[in-house]
């Protein structure tokens, strides 16, 4: 009881302080400094129409590499903490008929939609992170529908590694051609796609990197789901 009252008094102080601080930040007014530079130069410098994608992949590509690394470490940590000698799925009943039939029919369309989201990341809202999450959702649906479904571990783990290696390789090619890591060599040195800004084949390496990020996010979230579903089986002898 005392703990709750103390917590509420503390929360009121923190809330008052936050509201006081935010009253100096006007809502809905133009506060852009760096954003203005990005918006004015995004079409010439990167070729992408979607400015968010250009900031994520091109201007701040190194940060995104770090974030993908954090995702990889979290996924590895889940796998390491839940490691047991023998793990199996322990679900006792299948999904209903509607779920099983619907998941079989909808699976290719969900995968196609995820691929569409990350391939068109430089033109439409979306990109590698939501596209990868959509693909992981498709595998999650298969796990819920069938009681002994498991992903192909021999296929998934090399794909996950190759996507990460591909990201670094694209950056290293930029280091070799241009002057810095993750230099956009397709757009700036080769000059491909300058005439069709706003169509699919433009924006330099953004579609390539976003495809790699989509594959990596999808396989890693699927790996997390797989590690959390399978439980240890104890021998009864």
């Amino acid at each position, binding site marked *: *009881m005392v703990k*709750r009252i103390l917590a509420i008094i503390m929360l009121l102080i923190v809330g008052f302080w936050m509201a006081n601080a935010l009253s100096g930040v006007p809502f809905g007014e133009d506060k852009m400094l760096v954003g203005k530079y990005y918006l004015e130069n995004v079409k010439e410098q990167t070729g992408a129409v*979607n400015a*968010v*994608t250009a900031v994520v992949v091109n201007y701040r590509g190194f940060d995104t590499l770090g974030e993908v690394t954090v995702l990889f470490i979290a996924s590895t940590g889940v796998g390491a903490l839940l490691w047991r000698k023998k793990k199996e799925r322990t679900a006792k009943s299948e999904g209903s008929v509607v779920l099983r039939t619907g998941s079989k029919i909808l699976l290719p369309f969900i995968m196609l939609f995820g691929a569409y*989201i990350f391939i068109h990341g430089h033109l439409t*809202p*979306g*990109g590698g*992170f*939501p596209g990868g*999450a*959509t693909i*992981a*959702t498709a595998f*999650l649906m298969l796990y819920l529908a069938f009681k002994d479904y498991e992903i192909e571990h021999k296929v998934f783990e090399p794909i996950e590694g190759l996507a990460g290696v591909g990201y670094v390789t694209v950056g290293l090619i930029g280091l070799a051609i241009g002057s810095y890591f993750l230099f956009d060599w397709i757009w700036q040195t080769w000059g491909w796609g300058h005439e069709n800004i706003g169509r699919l084949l433009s924006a330099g390496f953004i579609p390539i990197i976003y495809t790699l990020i989509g594959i990596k996010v999808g396989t890693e*979230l699927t790996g*997390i*789901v797989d590690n*959390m*579903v399978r*439980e240890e089986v104890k021998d009864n002898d």
Partner: protein
Amino acid sequence: MNCIVCIEYIIVAVMVLSAIFAVEWGDLLAAVVGMTAVSLFASVLFFFLQAPDVAMTEAAIGAAMSAAVFIFAIKRTQRYESEEEGAGWWLRW
């Protein structure tokens, strides 16, 4: 007050209400569903704030993946939160 503003007020109110319920419900499965509702309403607010990228990501992650991960964890642990027994939420305060 035009109608979009009413919708914004209603969505923020429902979002805060479902956050309170998600924290106060003793059944953890219901709490996770409340958390998912918070994510979905936040996704609608992101769309109103002209951030369609973030709205899509929040809808895919917050609605599906986050809830699924929590539910798998609840399946492997326990479902009910064991607070002080024999009292409703108004007395537990």
